[in-house]
């Protein structure tokens, strides 16, 4: 009797397995259990990392839905403006109008179509989220990698610096930086992206460092070194792939955090500057006319919550799916 079984299927309920004659039977609850004497020889297909990830990920229903929502939001942000008959900054002298057939979300006090502006604002916010996440993950990975791999003095120095950065009061500093950006009349979106990226990398750096510190003592790294692998090869082929899970999860969560921070900055007037719409500065605008034109207050806020909620659920799902020690997925 030969059983080839990979770890992921060991405890999974309702996994079917193929008997030698080609019939599919459930692995559990069958009369022909291969484990009994005289049972059939079974064969369970070996799964790649990707397949195992997908099997676990799709169990987390909320995460799958969230991934769909995010995809839809990004598609709308990319293609929406092409389909909209209105432009985001064309001023019409009709004033603010509540939602109607021609303007599904109404118009603001300058007669601009609210829906077009929300979609445009989404372009900015979603772009800021993704780029900040990638930028900060990049910086954090490099810093954590160097600190964790070389250890000793370099590690001490880099981690002290990371601690210092963590001690900085983030929001006040961002506001000062936002003021400078507004004063110097630089393109506010890219400036905000760079500043946020430079201030959000510390968590990733710490995660990567601790992962590297743990991994570099492992036997397979020692073996690679004994075979003459260069530092670069060990880092890119052995250490980094094994540290990818926390990086991915954290990067996802940073997307949400960056969108929130950007909206807060724009709301306070230190972020994206009008007339470019962003969800934050649209709400700042809506605030002053809240009682007169309440419809302006809902769409940008709903957009922020929907996006950030989806990102957080996605992060949660990824955390579960990428955890290699987890044999069983959540109930």
């Amino acid at each position, binding site marked *: 009797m030969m059983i080839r079984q990979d770890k992921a299927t060991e405890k999974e309920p309702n996994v079917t397995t193929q008997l030698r004659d080609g019939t599919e039977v459930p692995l559990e609850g069958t009369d022909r259990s291969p484990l009994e004497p005289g049972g059939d020889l079974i064969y369970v297909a070996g799964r790649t990392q990707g397949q195992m990830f997908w099997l676990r990920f799709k169990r987390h229903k909320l995460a799958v839905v969230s991934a769909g929502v995010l995809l839809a939001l990004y598609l709308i942000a990319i293609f929406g403006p092409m389909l909209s008959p209105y432009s985001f900054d064309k001023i019409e002298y009709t004033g603010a109008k509540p939602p109607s057939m021609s303007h599904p979300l109404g118009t603001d006090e300058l007669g601009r179509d609210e829906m077009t502006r929300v979609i445009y604002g989404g372009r900015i916010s979603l772009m800021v989220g993704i780029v900040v996440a990638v930028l900060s993950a990049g910086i954090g990975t490099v810093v954590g990698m160097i600190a964790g791999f070389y250890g000793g003095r370099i590690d001490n120095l880099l981690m002290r610096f990371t601690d*210092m950065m963590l*001690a*900085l*009061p983030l*929001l*006040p*500093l961002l*506001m*000062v*930086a936002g*003021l*400078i950006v507004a*004063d110097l009349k630089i393109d506010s979106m890219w400036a905000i992206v760079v500043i946020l990226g430079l201030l959000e990398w510390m968590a990733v750096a710490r995660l990567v460092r601790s992962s590297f510190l743990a991994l570099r003592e492992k036997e397979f790294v020692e073996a690679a070194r004994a075979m003459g692998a260069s530092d670069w090869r060990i880092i890119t082929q052995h250490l980094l792939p094994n540290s990818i899970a926390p990086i991915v999860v954290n990067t996802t969560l940073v997307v*949400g955090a960056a969108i*929130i921070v950007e*909206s*807060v900055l724009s*709301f*306070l*007037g*230190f972020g994206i500057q009008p007339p470019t719409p962003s969800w*934050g500065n649209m*709400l700042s605008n*809506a*605030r002053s006319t*809240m*009682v007169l034109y*309440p419809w302006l*207050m809902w769409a*940008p*806020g709903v957009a*922020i*919550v929907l996006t*950030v*909620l989806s990102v*957080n*659920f996605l992060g949660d799902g990824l955390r579960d799916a990428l955890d290699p020690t987890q044999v069983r997925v959540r*109930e």
Partner: protein
Amino acid sequence: MAGTHVKLIGSFLSHLRELAPFIIRRIFYSIGVVAFVSVVVFALVSISGDPLANLRENPRIARSDIARIEQRMGLNKPKYVQFGYWLRDSVRGSGEWSTSFSYRAPVFPIIWDRFKNTLVLMSVTVLVCLVIAIPLGVFSALRQYSKLDYAVTALSFFGLSMPVFWFGLILQLVLGFYLMQALDLRQPLFFTASMYTTGFEHDWLNRARHLVLPVTTLALATVAGWSRYQRSSMLDVLNQDYLRTARAKGLPESRVIAKHALKNALIPVVTIVAIDLAYLLGGAVVTETIFAWPGMGRLFVQALEQRDFPMVMGNIIFTSVLLVVFNLLADVIYGFLDPRIRQE
């Protein structure tokens, strides 16, 4: 009862003595951190706009007057000299820090004044959050995967994804304005701005009605975070062997939970609460702006808008000192409550 308290204080003092070298090292390190912050902020502030821009644009103000103001404020000196001035003014014995551009008065007393207002808001907020978050976290851990647990998880995801300012605006519109209309009142039931109605300074009901909305706004995210933390810390403890031992020796379940589980599960939460406290006391910039609460956060926003750089600097330094102090405090208390940490 009194005896145990004396013993507790005694052991805390001996804990402090034990930690003295660590604390002293941390204090030096903290001074370094604050110095780092002040240099970064000063550098940022220096490349930012000109505080006299408005005066320069005004054709009725003579150039010589502007030059005189520059002279008085030290703005004509190189940046590093200006930093020296700021440093000198800040550490000079009077404890006043440097002079605010817009208030034309020493920075520190103004910050201290606003800090007291922030303190009022935050004490109520922290109290409310603790009373809600701790039981929520404990009960959802005790009944893991129950309806209550799922509801708490959903609430915490929602609370963490909701931008504070939007939640505040909704509260203002719905519980402030619409509720007033619905009840046909002349004044909102829950006020949407400021700390008290002028003339009602000593009316506690009036003050309470001003507190409801900002406290609720701040509480949403804080409760979401703390209850989640309490839940996972409680779950960790519930899986420990000593709980089984406690049950095995016949303790009633209520006592097992209250004495053995909860007491240990609260330890990590203390750390988070202490650090969040520092952030809250530093002034909730957004909440104070929306509800026109005259605290540190609003002072900071106004100072930035007026380009009152000594005030901006003072505010950020004050916040960083709070952060550093509370971080140290959190570590010391953590070590006291959990002796296993002391080994390090």
